[in-house]
């Protein structure tokens, strides 16, 4: 079976020969949840942004890099071709829902816009679809809430809206960039459970980008550990937690705050 996304020899350089990502290769299978783990600045977000062609103009992706999805190399796609893929085949969930949403647009319209950009001609139909999706991500009374502006919702609710936008068109892959780091632990638990449930229903593959190994343990079947732009370890979550092979993985594991509760 071929992988859903096949990244090969990906390298990204910033001006001044600063290498953000250094010759990394990995696969994601359909329906799989994989974590890209590491500290800030290790290149995990740059990797995801490179695959989505969302890097700024200074970033240079090495010419030998490939990211094969649906049989095509995403890195050589034209702008137009990429626009057809983003949001429909591959979607993203960002860390800061307040920054990912348009503050002057009602949330229902923002979710509906995803369908409209990808061919839905009727705003009414798109809006109805959006309301259904908002309901599915756990927003109660979605028909009314769809008319709210982002600032009228709590952080957890806003992240649900972002998730609704990402999952509206049932993409094959969702890239979630620190989706719960800005949220309370209680809301984090809800959001992780929600992503997992929606993934199981729709068979979506999820790439979690995170620094928090507790999130990895909770949600991912496999983990890719990065340090200084390179992959230092790839393993199933069970194996990584039971016996980390690389020193950096062990350091990350040790740093996770654990709650010791007496039985």
């Amino acid at each position, binding site marked *: 079976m071929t992988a859903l996304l096949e990244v090969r020899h990906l390298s990204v350089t910033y001006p001044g020969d600063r290498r953000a990502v250094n010759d990394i290769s990995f696969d994601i299978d359909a329906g799989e949840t994989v974590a890209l783990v590491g500290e800030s600045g290790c290149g995990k977000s740059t990797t995801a942004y490179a695959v989505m062609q969302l890097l700024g103009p200074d970033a240079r992706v090495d010419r030998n890099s490939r990211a094969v999805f649906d049989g095509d190399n995403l890195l050589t796609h034209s702008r137009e071709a990429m626009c057809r893929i983003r949001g429909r085949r591959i979607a993203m969930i960002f860390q800061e829902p307040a920054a990912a949403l348009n503050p002057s647009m009602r949330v229902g319209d923002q979710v509906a816009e995803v369908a409209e950009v990808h061919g839905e001609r009727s705003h009414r139909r798109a809006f109805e679809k959006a309301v259904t999706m908002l309901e599915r991500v756990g927003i109660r009374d979605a028909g009314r809430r769809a008319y709210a502006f982002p600032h009228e919702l709590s952080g957890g609710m806003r992240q649900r809206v972002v998730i609704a936008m990402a999952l509206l068109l049932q993409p094959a892959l969702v890239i979630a960039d620190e989706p719960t780091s800005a949220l309370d*632990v*209680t*809301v984090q*638990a809800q959001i992780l459970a929600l992503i997992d449930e929606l993934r199981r229903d729709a068979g979506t593959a999820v790439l979690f980008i995170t620094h*928090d190994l507790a999130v*990895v343990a*909770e949600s991912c079947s496999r983990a890719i550990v990065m340090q200084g732009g390179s992959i230092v370890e790839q393993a199933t979550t069970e194996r990584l*937690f039971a016996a980390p092979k690389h020193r950096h993985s062990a350091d990350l594991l040790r740093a996770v705050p654990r*709650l010791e*509760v007496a039985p």
Partner: protein
Amino acid sequence: MTRDALVSVRGLRVRYPDRRGWRRGRARSIFAVNDVSFEIGRGDTLALVGESGCGKTSTARALLRIIEPEAGEIRFGGVDVRVLRGTLLRRHRQRTQIVFQDPFTSLNPRMTIAEIIAEGITVHDLAKGAERERRVKRLLDEVGLASVDASSFPHELSGGQRQRVAIARALAVDPEMLVLDEAVSALDVTTQAMILDLFTQLRTQRRLTTLFIAHNLAVVQRVATHVAVMYAGRVVEQAPAATLFSSAKHPYTRALIAAVPAPDPRLKRQRVVLTDDISTIALPQTGCPFFARCQHAKKDAACSSAVPPLAEVGADHVAACVKEAR
């Protein structure tokens, strides 16, 4: 309660005008902090725990006189904080210092880190000239920034280094109490662990009393000696840290403990996932504020008739739940 309390808060209330609706600010208002009482013993670390909007930051700010409370008594070293003015208020500001959550926004981007740290020393007239420079140097050493150029600007530092600068700035005026307001939640886990270690070390060396505000109980467990759990502006449970983590009584505390993700893939804990979040549910006019989200299968009339008072449930351990009171 405690032997030698540095901080003592009784019946604290903080109220903000409600900005919603056409009569904004007039008819309704919201109690961010409602009848909160606690003490912090000298050298202790009290953690204030709860979700966003529960009133923990407002409580700390009232203590520092950043905001003015509506009612209640705040004593710091025996002195009534609410009536302080002029020189005495400045003295209070020197004795209490705060480190904020986001080191990207809490440091002035146009000042060098030496200037940032020296500012408090100058304002409180603690040292001048070469002596002030020596102090800044010593503080940088103390927070583990000995190798960093003091003339660099905040944007040249990493998140962890910036938070160290914020700690050095707080320590520069030799405070007795430090408030850490979610001071590690914006950091990477590895950086977080290092900052917590630094804090533990400084606390012992300088004999600091600390108010530690956080929502992640795993972090709280590493540093706190005492814990107060807040919900909807009220303290719902309070105990020494060891007691709270071994025998939490309030259903909200138990839910908070269950929400901490376990860094172990084999352990799929049965999580008491709290549904909704506090901002989306209407708080009951009477009765227990936690009523709508409570896990207790049988909620009875006592739950909805009055706000449960904090009652003793063990040694030095109080909880506001009618189901747990003895």
